[in-house]
């Protein structure tokens, strides 16, 4: 038997109606909101950059990057930190260069020269996680007219800027003008950073694998990814040579295993052929080396142990052979591979 309670007070009735009214209002709101929802409309904060937030968040300040600042320099703006997800907010389309090379973090800050109110300097300190990554972005952007410096093994200056590698850091110090008066504050800033930032020296031992004869000074570089347009070719060291008045390039990349090196050499040769290269049968001085003519230049690809290596952009086969023998001998001599 089911029984119904007849004692329902007016208070209970009023409470029930109030709850039902609230539920109806909430339900109506949900329906309206759902119909207006647009996933492409970002929250207001997201319409502007994340960097705007970055600049307000605990800045690294001068203390973290340059403490203490050299005399005569004072912070002009607060420091900013950029990480992988928002690096492009600071350097736009160049972010890919750093990201593909192992970028970890950027600290940047502007300083003013207290003796010259119109002069300011911005420091970009890229933490690239290790010295090889730092060297990679350093070498990729090296200016041809840069004057080498001795502040670190990889450093140079241009009329308005200093660029150097210090341990795992790639550093750019850029002044607002090109004049004699910017030289001292830039040098002081660089020296102060180097002195106050403990890091292991970036020793790029791979540089020893390039033969010295006819090597163009300061031409050794490291391509982190997509070397020569081939996406499988990464971590490639390159060097420019000048033979008989013409330029050509030598390169190598150490792979994990001997087989990996062989496979990469073969796939790179195929890549060249697929893009119009002609594989040429020729008596080559290195066993299993391959010669390809492409765009009126010659490339020789070979393997030595786990090294995949070669020369490219040679205008004659003889030039290519001459350099490739030197490179092969040098790798054999220095690498210690059997």
């Amino acid at each position: 038997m089911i029984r119904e309670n007849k004692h329902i007070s007016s208070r209970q009735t009023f409470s029930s109606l109030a709850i039902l009214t609230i539920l109806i209002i909430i339900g109506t709101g949900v329906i309206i909101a759902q119909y207006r929802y647009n996933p492409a409309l970002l929250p207001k904060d997201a319409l502007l950059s994340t960097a705007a937030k970055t600049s307000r968040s605990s800045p690294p300040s001068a203390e973290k990057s340059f403490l203490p600042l050299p005399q005569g320099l004072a912070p002009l703006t607060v420091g900013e930190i950029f990480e992988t997800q928002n690096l492009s907010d600071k350097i736009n389309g160049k972010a890919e260069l750093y990201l593909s090379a192992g970028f970890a973090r950027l600290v940047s800050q502007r300083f003013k020269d207290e003796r010259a109110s119109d002069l300011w300097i911005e420091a970009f300190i890229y933490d690239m996680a290790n010295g090889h990554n730092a060297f990679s972005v350093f070498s990729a952007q090296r200016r041809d007219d840069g004057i080498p410096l001795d502040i670190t093994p990889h450093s140079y200056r241009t009329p308005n800027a200093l660029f150097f590698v210090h341990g795992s850091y790639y550093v750019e110090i850029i002044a607002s003008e090109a004049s004699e008066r910017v030289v001292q504050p830039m040098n002081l800033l660089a020296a102060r950073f180097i002195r106050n930032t403990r890091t292991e020296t970036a020793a790029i031992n791979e540089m020893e694998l390039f033969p010295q004869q006819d090597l163009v000074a300061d031409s050794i570089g490291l391509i982190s990814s997509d070397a020569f347009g081939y996406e499988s070719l990464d971590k490639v060291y390159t060097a420019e040579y000048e033979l008989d008045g013409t330029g050509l390039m030598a390169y190598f990349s150490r792979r994990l295993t001997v087989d990996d090196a062989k496979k990469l050499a073969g796939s790179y040769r195929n890549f060249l052929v697929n893009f119009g290269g002609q594989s040429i049968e020729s008596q080559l001085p290195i066993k299993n080396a391959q010669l390809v003519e492409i765009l009126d230049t010659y490339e020789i690809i070979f393997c030595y142990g786990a090294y995949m290596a070669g020369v490219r952009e040679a205008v004659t086969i003889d030039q290519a052979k001459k350099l490739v023998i030197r490179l092969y001998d040098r790798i054999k001599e220095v690498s210690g591979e059997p």
Partner: protein
Amino acid sequence: MNHDPSIKVLNRRQFLVRSAKAGAAIAAACAAGFWFHDAKGPDRSAEHHSDIHLPDFSIEGLGAKMSIVRGQDRVATLRLAIKSMGGIETFIKNGDRVLLKVNAAFASPAMLSATTHPAIIAEMTALCYGAGAASVVVTDNPINDPASCFNLTGIAEAARRAGAKVILPRAELFKSLTVPQAKLIRNRPVLYQPLVDITKVIGMAPVKDHHRSGASMAMKNWYGLLGGRRNIFHQDINTIIKELAMMVNPSLVILDGTMSMMTNGPTGGSLSDLKQTNTMIVATDQVAADAFGATLLDKTFNDLPFIGMAEAAGLGTADYRSLDPAELSL
């Protein structure tokens, strides 16, 4: 068993009627839920969600015009280029409200040519007012620290001194916008509010190398109107540049190749990245302007896919010579 008189006993019929009502209420709630459920999710198509678009700012009846002036003095070459196209009055009429879309992307000094040079912004502002413009505004969305970008480049001071109003990006100035036929610019936040009531839009950009796209010139300059997480577009850089050109049909573009950034763009950082190419390009056809600008970077339009894509989309011609551009030297 005691019988409480306040308790009414339900008979079988009443119980069944009430059960049926409760079942109907539950079924109705479930039906309503099913009716509101959208299995496909929100429709992102332009036609359904964004009725905002940018008007066509091109000048009716003017057609494609171009002028190339060589010389070291960018202000003088700009003046001559405008003059060779019929004078500023060809583009700006009495009462026009003009927007100068500059490149203020980085807080770097003007000498590095990573941003629009303040001298030509001041000159263009003066020319517009001289032709009777009612107002001139200067804007860009540099993403990072807009105030520093406008100030340290010298753009803010130059514009204000010439009488232009500088509009820095703020969240409320953005609106969601879709470009018809576009793949990427669909319901994307765009710096829209400064363009409301504007009658003429002039793009002003430097000629620069760009790590992703190969070059940053007149068409890429509209990238600075985008908001939100626009860096995702770097994954399809050529398409986004084409779509930016679809989004903005300007009255005029000014491409400053007095100093071109040949390497390490778009930021540069050293004077070593620059080459004195001594050329000012002014055009109503932004595709043609970029096609010529490519030559200053020692490239052809074939090296820069976005130019061919924009041409194929009917946004202009890559064959800038077909416009019979005025070519002058100072």
